[in-house]
């Protein structure tokens, strides 16, 4: 960027130029209004009243500027032909301020009147080569008229300044705010994971705003590249870890089969290994899920979901896997909404919380739902265990955090709650935990409710 592209300099120049334009237009207007009026033909009345005096040729020879001719009329200028050059005499005060008007009026063919600030100039009157101009004070009416026109000039000036500055303010605002709005939009697009930004011609600007726009474009591109790299890495890591794990699992089964004992499962070391291989698989799966959720790599498939049915199906599935555990899950009737969301992700959120509760407590686990208003609801997962120390409530959602290290061996891999939180975030919700006043831990899933049109609800889903 060159120094003359600097936004500061441009703003400075722009302000300067525009203020200058407003001021000068006001100034020009003032000049325009204070311009002397054009000469008007002399009214017959005045010519008549003056003609008796001016018809006497002898009077001209004695007339010198400043002399009073009759009544209010004084001589303002006189031209007397003499031998050689013509003699021009001007009234000294007037000659200082209005020399041009005096001379131009002297050259006029017909007698005219011209209003000056301090009097009315009349003439020329002449006899042979002699010519004179007269001046008389302004009448009351004429003075008033002059004041009015001066006031008009002032008003016009004020108006020009007012509207001129308003126009400039609007232009400046537009010029500055529009690109800013575009930049805000682009920042939102980046946050939403866009690669191509809608900046139009903004990046082509030479100033700081253009530079910012270009920087944003680069950032969006870099983010895209890093997201792609992340995706590839995830895929590669996942492949590289899973392949040996798959081999281990097969090898384990073979070694169990090779065991000469009839009951192969009796070998406790192999059973332990087999369990750990399964756990390892689960951990890898969950880390990958967590990472995909955090990096926005999860594609949502929103469709109408009856949350009550979802919770019931979940409880039924848990019963299917382990009857004792499933019996402990109680789905309470409540204000379960039907909402457009990703059913798998929502299921993931709830299932991890319920499994967690099943793992850490022995009592009943209650699932219920409360609606706050039309747009949000809270699904509550409450157990009847010992709860969690207040200071550890926040840590519950950190990856690999386990509430009770002594139950470590029995518990999961410590990623369930973290997964729930991330998945809820992806769905536009949040998860919080608190100790219920009547004992036990209560985890709240706060979710937005996306309303559905009745017709949409009945429509077929594209499989």
């Amino acid at each position, binding site marked *: 960027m060159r120094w003359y592209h600097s936004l500061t300099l441009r703003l400075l120049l722009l302000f300067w130029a525009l203020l200058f334009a407003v001021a000068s237009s006001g100034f020009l207007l003032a000049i325009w209004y204070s311009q002397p009026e054009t000469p008007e033909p002399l009214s017959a009345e005045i010519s008549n009243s003056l003609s008796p005096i001016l018809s006497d040729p002898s009077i001209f020879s004695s007339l010198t500027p400043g002399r009073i001719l009759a009544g209010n009329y004084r001589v303002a200028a006189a031209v007397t032909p003499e031998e050689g050059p013509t003699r021009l005499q001007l009234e000294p005060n007037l000659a200082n301020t209005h020399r041009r008007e005096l001379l131009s009026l002297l050259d006029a063919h017909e007698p005219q009147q011209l209003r000056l600030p301090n009097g009315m100039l009349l003439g020329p009157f002449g006899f042979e080569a002699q010519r004179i101009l007269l001046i008389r004070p302004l009448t009351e009416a004429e003075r008033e008229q002059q004041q009015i026109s001066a006031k008009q000039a002032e008003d016009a000036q004020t108006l020009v300044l007012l509207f001129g500055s308003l126009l400039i303010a609007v232009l400046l605002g537009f010029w500055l705010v529009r690109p800013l709005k575009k930049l805000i939009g682009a920042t939102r697009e980046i946050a939403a994971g866009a690669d191509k930004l809608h900046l139009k011609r903004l990046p082509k600007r030479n100033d700081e705003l253009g530079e910012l726009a270009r920087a944003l474009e680069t950032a969006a591109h870099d983010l895209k590249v890093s997201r792609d790299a992340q995706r590839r890495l*995830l*895929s590669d890591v*996942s*492949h590289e870890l*899973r*392949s040996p*794990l*798959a*081999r*281990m*699992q*097969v*090898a384990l*089964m*073979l070694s169990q*089969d090779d065991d000469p004992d009839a009951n192969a499962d009796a070998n406790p070391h192999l059973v332990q290994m087999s369990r750990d*291989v*399964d756990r390892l*698989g689960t951990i890898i*799966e969950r880390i*990958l899920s967590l990472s*995909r959720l955090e990096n926005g790599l999860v*594609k949502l498939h929103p*469709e*109408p979901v*009856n949350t009550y*049915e979802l919770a019931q199906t*979940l409880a039924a*599935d848990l019963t299917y896997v382990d009857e004792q555990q499933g019996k402990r899950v109680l789905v309470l009737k409540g204000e379960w909404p039907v909402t457009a969301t990703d059913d*798998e992700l929502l*299921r*993931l959120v709830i*299932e991890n919380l319920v499994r967690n509760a099943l793992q850490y407590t022995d009592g009943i686990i209650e699932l219920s739902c409360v609606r706050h208003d039309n747009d949000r609801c809270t699904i509550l997962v409450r157990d009847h265990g010992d709860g969690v120390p207040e200071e550890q409530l926040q840590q519950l959602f950190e990856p690999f955090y386990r509430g009770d290290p002594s139950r470590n061996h029995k518990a999961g891999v410590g990623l369930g709650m973290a997964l729930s939180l991330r998945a809820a975030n992806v769905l536009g919700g949040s998860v919080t935990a608190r100790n219920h006043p009547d004992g036990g831990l209560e985890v709240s899933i706060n979710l937005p409710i996306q309303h559905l049109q009745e017709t949409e609800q009945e429509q*077929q*889903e*594209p*499989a």
Partner: protein
Amino acid sequence: MTKLLLVDDDAELSSMLEQILTKEGYQLTLAPDGETGLQRALSGSYDLILLDVMLPGIDGFQLLQRLRQQLRSTPVLMLTARGDDDDRVQGLELGADDYLPKPFNPRELVARVKALLRRTPNTSVRPEPLEFAGFHVNPLQNEVRCDEQTLELTPTEFDILRALVQGKGQVVSKDQLSVAALGRQLAPFDRSLDVHISNIRKKIEHNPERIQTVRGRGYRLLQLA
């Protein structure tokens, strides 16, 4: 003897799987890369193909695509070590019958293989032809005609459609369909059935929506007006 083809570049895993499957009474042929795999698969003498996605040369998806252009009748079970759900769905869309993510329990693999092999013409539940909603199912020849046109279906798609036609317009639940076609219950997060249904719809020229989704319950056939 039932003949299986395993296309996987992981030689150690392949040899161990060979031991397990041989013990189960199958004859396993190995192919270490995509080219070999495709050649052997196209020879057509296999009852089931186990296919890994990540392969040197042509990968599992490309292999599947080319295979399905010529050979529809052999069931294909995809083995995938990649985590993305999209990968799993992609395999099904290209005509795989089922998938098993690595690492898998070998017993699960055997169970899936058995489930996919169970469907041979002589073991079909009802050998007599079925007809509903414009579909004509001939179990003896593994053939479905829709509006007098023969549909090119994979074995799984055939089983799903047969189960739907047997339902005669009643809702057939996803679990029923999954058991009928894949020989297993649907796991949560499993979209495979939806992908198969979508594949079938794509093959029906007129009124593919006659296979209706009943949200939360399953699918059913709509009698044409």
